[in-house]
């Protein structure tokens, strides 16, 4: 699954922190370092599976259990971004068609 920031979102960030402005709701949010990194990888057009792989390598290279937790956290965060319409679906891949079915359904509803 590949996502991108919504057209309604204006954002700024320098790696350690990302600030988001939802121009439709007037809400401002500040992402912490890890969330900011995920956001920036999304903005670079990286598939969610690749984002998971990169962060697992960095934080839990030798620990399968920890890797599973990290993947769950990332996918939960991405789903929250999507539910808040801060990101939109660009492309679906075979891997995420199964694991992210609920997110895809949301995307269809908002299209």
């Amino acid at each position, binding site marked *: 699954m590949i996502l991108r*920031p*919504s*057209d*309604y*979102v*204006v*954002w*700024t*960030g*320098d790696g350690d922190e990302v*600030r988001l*402005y*939802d*121009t*439709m*709701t*007037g*809400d*401002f949010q500040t992402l912490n370092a890890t969330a900011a990194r995920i956001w920036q990888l999304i*903005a670079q057009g990286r598939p969610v599976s690749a984002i998971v792989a990169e962060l697992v390598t960095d934080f839990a290279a030798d620990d399968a259990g920890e890797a599973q937790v990290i993947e769950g956290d990332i996918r939960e965060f991405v789903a929250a971004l999507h539910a808040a319409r801060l990101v939109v679906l660009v492309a679906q891949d075979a891997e995420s068609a199964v694991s992210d079915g609920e997110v895809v359904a949301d995307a269809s509803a908002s299209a």
Partner: protein
Amino acid sequence: MPPLPPDRGELSLIRAALRRSGRATIRVTGTSMLPSIVPGSQVTIEHKPFAGVRAGEVVAFVLSGDVFVHRIAERDATRLVTAGDSMPLFDPPVTEDSYLGQVAGLPVPAGLAALSGPLPIGAADRAGGTRLTFWCPADPGRVPAVSALLTAGAQLRVVADKDVLSQLEQLDRAGHADASGSGRRALRVGVSAAGRSAAGTLAALAPAGIGRCDILVGYRFGSPCSGHATLAPDAVDYHVRAAAPLAEVPLDQALDIVAAAVR
């Protein structure tokens, strides 16, 4: 949307949204636009050229780094004169640099008179006549309209801006506030370029017979961010201006206009 350069605050995000899409929604937190805008509600700023906004419309602008949403009372080619619907004073002039856009979806009042608050004088105040004291930060010299009032019993006090409030409070404590014996302190009127209402509204003072009334002329009112304010807006009960909004007039001229209004 692509990211902005780093290290920018919320204001830059709002400006960027307006540049890119012509719209930006923000949440309103203050009460200055009651009843038109309720605190906590969302308003949408839309791009509109500075030259295109007119009196009665609500605009968003930046003052001291914060975003304000207030209504235009008047304008000329380079400045907007704005105020919150529930505020007694005009804001510092809004220039094109600080202007963000127009707030969509708010009705324009039928007449600009709707922007002026009512004079807070009620029927219950009709006792004992009105006794006026004019307070000025400097000697105004001879002002014909004031002289006539002084002959009729009014007073003129020349008191520096830093001392005027303490002297007013001293008089109130001494029991001079109200000759009718109600214990209510004197009505205080501020006359400044930022006053929301025209001096003509003071004409209601004479028939109302409100007891003692202190009229402060030549002092500056406003929030500290306006740069040169000396007295807080709530230091007086009612604000008027002697001339056009934000137009400074000499002290003697302001006194003359105000005295003529209350005579």
